[in-house]
């Protein structure tokens, strides 16, 4: 059995007014990349605070490597690399001074990895941090979180403020870290970076975990969706009466979206044969669609 690295056990923290997190549970295995998905204010940062031992739970506990993080925060053993959601720095330091400051606190003696990361993200560390752009500050935060190659990385919205090129670079970095064997909790509201990097994902909404799933289950879902446009309205009218799982239709454009299980796909094509089709395409299942099924209820026309 794979060993559990981070264990969030039934944590509740009630701030009143329905704010907080409620019975949040998940386990992250050693070496796993775990995505934590939800919009701002859903409870991602609150959960992270408890994992880091910054906050005491009302009930439940956060455990890292078997130790309760409120009683003994894992950072004390040098296990944590942390990139906060809203990054802030001490006044009046240059990038170089700050990296050295955090390095000293980490007990870091070899700065080779730090230099690699500085190069990888193209950071100019000579200037005062105060004067840096948001993206540049974020990159400095990435350097300090990753430079001592900790076994556990807690990343709260790590790519906020980064341009698309740097977001890609960051995904590369996370993949490198996975190879190294790091355990990573990646909180985000960016589907792509979660989809590309994470093994498993938990979706949080209003402080409650609404779903937990394997990314592979989405990528290799046996429920496929196909979009079809007909040439003739008569075909359209006839088609929608077929015994199929039609999830969406639009009469004036003669568009139909059909849900089909892989095992029924041949039967589906037999039906399609009877019609004149303008085009036909598969709608790729994405994490975003899955996510929206929890969040975008009012926007969807599903019955």
């Amino acid at each position: 059995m794979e060993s559990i690295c981070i264990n969030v056990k039934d944590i509740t923290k009630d701030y009143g007014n329905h704010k907080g997190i409620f019975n949040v549970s998940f386990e992250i295995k050693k070496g796993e990349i775990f995505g934590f998905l939800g919009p701002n204010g859903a409870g991602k940062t609150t959960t992270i605070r408890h994992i880091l031992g910054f906050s005491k739970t009302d009930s439940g506990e956060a455990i890292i490597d078997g130790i309760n993080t409120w009683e003994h925060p894992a950072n004390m053993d040098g296990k944590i690399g942390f990139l906060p959601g809203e990054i802030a720095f001490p006044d009046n330091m240059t990038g170089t001074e700050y990296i050295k400051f955090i390095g000293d606190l980490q007990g870091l003696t070899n700065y080779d990895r730090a230099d690699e990361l500085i190069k990888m993200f193209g950071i100019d560390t000579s200037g005062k941090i105060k004067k840096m752009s948001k993206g540049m500050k974020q990159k400095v935060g990435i350097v300090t979180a990753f430079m001592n190659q900790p076994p556990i990385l807690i990343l709260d919205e790590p790519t906020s403020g980064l341009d698309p090129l740097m977001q890609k670079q960051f995904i590369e970095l996370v993949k490198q870290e996975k190879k190294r064997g790091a355990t990573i909790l990646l909180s985000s509201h960016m589907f792509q970076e979660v989809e590309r990097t994470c093994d498993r994902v938990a979706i949080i909404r209003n402080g409650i975990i609404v779903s937990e799933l394997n990314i592979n289950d989405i990528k290799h879902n046996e429920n496929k969706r196909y979009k079809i446009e007909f040439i003739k309205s008569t075909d359209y009218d006839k088609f929608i009466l077929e015994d199929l799982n039609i999830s969406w239709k639009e009469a004036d454009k003669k568009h139909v979206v059909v849900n089909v299980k892989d095992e029924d796909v041949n039967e589906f094509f037999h039906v399609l044969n009877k019609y004149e089709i303008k085009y036909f395409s598969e709608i790729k299942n994405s994490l975003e669609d899955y996510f929206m099924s929890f969040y975008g209820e009012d926007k969807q026309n599903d019955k």
Partner: protein
Amino acid sequence: MINKTLFKQYWKSNWKLFAIITGVLVLFLIMMIFAYEQMLDRAAESGVASTLDLTSFLSAAYLGGMCLLLPMVFTIVVSNKAIASKIDKGSLGIVLSTKTTRNQVTFTNALGIILSLVGMFAFVFVGGIITSAIMAPGALVVLDYFELLVGMLMLQLALSGISYFASCTFNTSGRSLALGAGIPIIFYVISILSSIDTSLDFFKYFTLMTLYNATDILTLTFVWQYLVLGVVAVAGYAAGIIIFNKKDLPL
């Protein structure tokens, strides 16, 4: 408990304010001794011998004024910066994700503030001795001067204990300053009020400043007052450190 890197960081971010406040304090002291010298000269010219000695003069003109207010401003600013402001801004989050513990943060900054105050008064002590030796040789009773400064230092430590407690307790600079600056300032205002008129004398029981009393200090009846100030200082710092260790940090 003490973290070398954080201690360096404390001085790096506070040495300028420390230098300015200490510099102004010493400069003011030099001016006061100079003024005393002028006063003596004028008294001698008019043929009246002055009975006011330098130590009493400094006690009245310097210690209760600048020497009370400036270090107070220093601790108010530095205490807030040490903890509450770092939570307010969020810069403590990454620091507390390294091997650094909460106690290291609070103990190290407390040590920094206490040493700053001790250092500040050491400069004032040495500065007073050197200046008086040059301008008015023999006029300063060193032991009395020393005792007065120790008394004022104790008062400052007690006030800094309050400010530090506030900084450790609250998560925003605003709230930390409301208490950490508010209480020392209220104490100061009350002490002024109580000295205006004898009918307002009872106000003195509502301010810590009363525990610094030059007359009592010089007649050596001050031991219990020091003790109270010491207890307030220790209680303030200790309570702050304990509360900070147990509270939720919104980082």
